[in-house]
């Protein structure tokens, strides 16, 4: 298959529009050829995961583009960075890490982007609309944009997202195209109580399970009795995009491309049907624990970044309670949601409880946790999935209520009542 380019694409490729666009377009064209795309399409927005600091190579790439005068061609938000820009000294971050991580922030900010520093760009009022063609990085953001909003992005990696933003173009392939958005595997919820479905804790557990079974396929979930909140979708998608490579899911009768089962599958038969039972969910919940004791050093919530609604929920849970002195309580969020929480007057309540707030980054992308933190607890499937490998720390999983109760008690408490039936 040959790749057809427009005159403007060729102009960028030749370097007529500057050296930065030339590099970006050259990378896009090579990737489009590898992917057998027939042409490129125009995007209306981008979200840049390349901001996550890994090491010298990613920094070199960012600074090279910046030094060549790269500017984004479409509205572009930025993912988490390697440090909380103004508060990293309060944590165990070394200046050897902070300095290059900060240079990487400056490089991406210099390109005319919005310095949102968040893995949850869909919380912003500027989020994309149904049908928008976009180029997003960050696995949890990709799956949310595609599935809950119905915008269209491929599962883009770091370094490519910025090439799309600079040129305003992306390969016409994968999830950009209607024919590739049909469901592939049907998951039927069997005898899962509405009480459990209403509870936040159901969604990371279900996401972890579906990701593991669907891998890189498009799952369709049938049998949800309620419409999940945005935060529940966030937790579900982040889980499914960690244990698997899910970039799009449909929920029959709920998500925008699945008003019926037939719609979700584009009138095709599912390639596979899997019945989801309580036993499978219990096993998935158990797999999110990676610890063999009830010891607890830190509770971490806000993976992906805590929303205003979650801030409020947490505030109501900690009200009148006292945190155990041996347990730290970490919130990771972005500046926008934290500002709204401030305006809502709930930060003093959280701070009285002893919560610490980190913005711009998180405990997975910044080496902020001191070595004495060995046992963590989280309400996030994504955090639970990655922390043993990335941080070398033990992790327990529970609901937000479990997290607060554990922080008060000083050891891990997990409410089993919802999971017994």
């Amino acid at each position, binding site marked *: 298959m040959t790749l057809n380019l427009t005159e403007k694409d060729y102009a960028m490729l030749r370097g007529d529009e500057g050296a930065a666009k030339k*590099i970006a377009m*050259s*990378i896009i064209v*090579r*990737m489009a050829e*590898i*992917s057998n795309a027939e042409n490129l399409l125009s995007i209306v927005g981008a979200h840049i*995961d*390349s901001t*996550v600091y*890994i*090491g*010298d*190579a*990613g920094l*070199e*790439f960012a600074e*090279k583009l910046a030094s060549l005068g790269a500017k984004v061609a479409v509205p572009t938000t930025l993912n988490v960075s390697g440090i909380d820009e103004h508060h990293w000294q309060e944590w165990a971050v070394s200046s050897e890490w902070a300095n290059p991580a900060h240079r990487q922030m400056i490089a991406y900010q210099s390109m005319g982007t919005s310095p949102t520093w968040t893995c949850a760009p869909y919380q912003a009022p500027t989020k994309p609309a149904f049908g928008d063609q976009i180029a997003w*990085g*960050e*696995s949890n953001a*990709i799956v949310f944009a595609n599935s809950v909003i119905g915008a269209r992005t*491929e*599962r*883009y*990696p*770091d*370094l*490519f*997202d910025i090439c799309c933003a600079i040129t305003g173009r992306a390969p016409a392939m994968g999830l950009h195209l209607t024919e590739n958005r049909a469901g592939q595997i049907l998951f039927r919820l069997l005898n899962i109580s509405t009480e459990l479905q209403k509870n936040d804790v159901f969604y990371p557990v279900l996401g972890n399970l579906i*990701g593991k079974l669907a*891998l*890189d396929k498009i799952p369709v979930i049938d049998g949800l009795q309620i419409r999940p909140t945005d935060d529940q979708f966030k937790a579900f998608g982040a889980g499914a*995009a*960690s*244990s*698997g*490579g899910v970039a799009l899911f449909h929920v029959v009768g709920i998500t925008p491309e699945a008003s019926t089962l037939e719609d979700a599958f584009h009138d095709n038969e599912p390639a596979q049907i899997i019945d989801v039972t309580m036993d499978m969910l219990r096993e998935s919940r158990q*797999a999110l624990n*990676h610890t063999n004791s009830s010891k607890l050093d830190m509770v971490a919530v806000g993976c992906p970044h805590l929303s205003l609604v979650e801030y409020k929920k947490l505030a109501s849970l900690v009200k009148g309670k006292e945190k155990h002195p041996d347990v730290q309580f970490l919130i990771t969020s972005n500046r926008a949601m934290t500002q709204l929480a401030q305006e809502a007057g709930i930060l003093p309540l959280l701070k009285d409880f002893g919560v610490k707030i980190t913005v711009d980054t998180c405990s*997975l992308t910044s080496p902020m946790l001191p070595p004495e933190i060995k046992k963590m607890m989280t309400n996030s499937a994504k955090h639970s*999935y*990655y922390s*043993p*490998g*990335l941080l070398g720390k033990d992790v327990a999983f529970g609901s937000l209520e479990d997290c607060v109760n554990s922080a008060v008690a000083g050891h891990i408490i997990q409410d089993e009542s919802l999971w017994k039936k």
Partner: protein
Amino acid sequence: MEKIVLEGNIVVSGEAVGVALVANEPLSFWGGYDQKTGEIIDRRHILSGKIAKDKILAIPFTRGSSTTTAVLLDAIRAKTAPAAIITTDTDFFFALASIVADELFSSPLSLVTLNENDFAILKTDDEIQITNDGKVIISR
């Protein structure tokens, strides 16, 4: 010694030789690959604890984080990357790391795909040679 020749499809061409490290389970490099040492660090993965540096890594595809590309690119620069990666389908995340490594350091990583039947022939500790035209030659 047994010799098997498989016809692979080139994603990014390049000769490579090394010992195979094979899993039939996808992997995220972010949280799954230590670019300082080349160790597989996903503690839930079957290859957890194995060193993939200079090996021929064979996994069906990537899962999870979009930061996989940045981790692989950093590993290529730090010379802790696998000698080549074999997948069952073109993996966009790996391909991009290889192409950016070519653009930045002129050192692309060899990437080849095998169909699922041929992929299933691969075994950890096979000696593998990948040729410029995408042949995967196994000696065991």
